[in-house]
């Protein structure tokens, strides 16, 4: 027996593609956020490191 009409399954297709794009978007955004946070951490840690080396060199002079 043959199907007379193609079944209406568009909603599932839309849900599938929406899901795939949302997950990929979230992942790319998470990488962007992590990248920005790590760069900020590096800046902070480098400034702390230079302060620390300044302090240690001044204490050596004394």
């Amino acid at each position, binding site marked *: 027996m043959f199907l007379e009409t193609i079944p209406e399954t568009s909603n599932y297709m839309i849900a599938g593609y929406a899901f795939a794009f949302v997950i990929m978007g979230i*992942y790319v955004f998470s990488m962007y956020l992590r990248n920005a946070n790590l760069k900020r951490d590096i800046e902070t840690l480098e400034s702390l490191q230079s302060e620390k080396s300044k302090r240690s060199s001044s204490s050596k002079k004394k």
Partner: protein
Amino acid sequence: MQPRPLALKILDFASVIVLGVATYLALVFAPTEAVMGQVQRVFYFHIGTAWVGLLGFILAAAAGIAYLVTKDMRWDRFEVAAVEVSTVFFFITIVLGSIWARPAWNTWWTWDPRLTTAAITELIYIAYFMLRQGIDDPEKRARFGAVYTLLGGVSAPITFMVIRLFRSIHPIVIGAANGTQEKMNMTSDMRVAFFFGLFAFTIIFIDMMWHRIRLGALEEKVEQLKLTVSM
């Protein structure tokens, strides 16, 4: 941190373009399947994401071996990138499969051999990150991670082969069905969308891997700076 190289910028641009073309081919160019209707179009992204998902798990296992042999932390970074990107893509694969199954099999989920092994594979790699987070020493973490991905890597070929070895309701796309299984027949336009989908997700996977490896280098730098500041 090195600025983004030109090749990576080109790859970013290419990824956006191929994703757009793959979407067009899947949603517009490929004909509507007569039995399942529009939901069959989900299959083009389902296979594309499954391909890069399993590829990444195999690459992670290879990187694990390379780390154990060389003790070079760059292999550890590569391994983490491969696992993370593949876990995301494989999660998409599983959910797209479930969405397709609802109208095709009249259920969101069934404990079919393929679905079961795919779920186990995904859980193995989610547990990989839990394992890594529990270890502070970078070298020990890399060593444990390498051994774990080596063992976990076995799940990828099992997931691929299981529908060929056991009785399954999951359709076979690549290779011949054994008579009891459903074989997916495609028209030439469907094949274009299918193969371009594989190509597009390979490009996107390489692009995301590259970005994740660079992120790993930053993480390593932060870890080293924290150590020097705290000493």
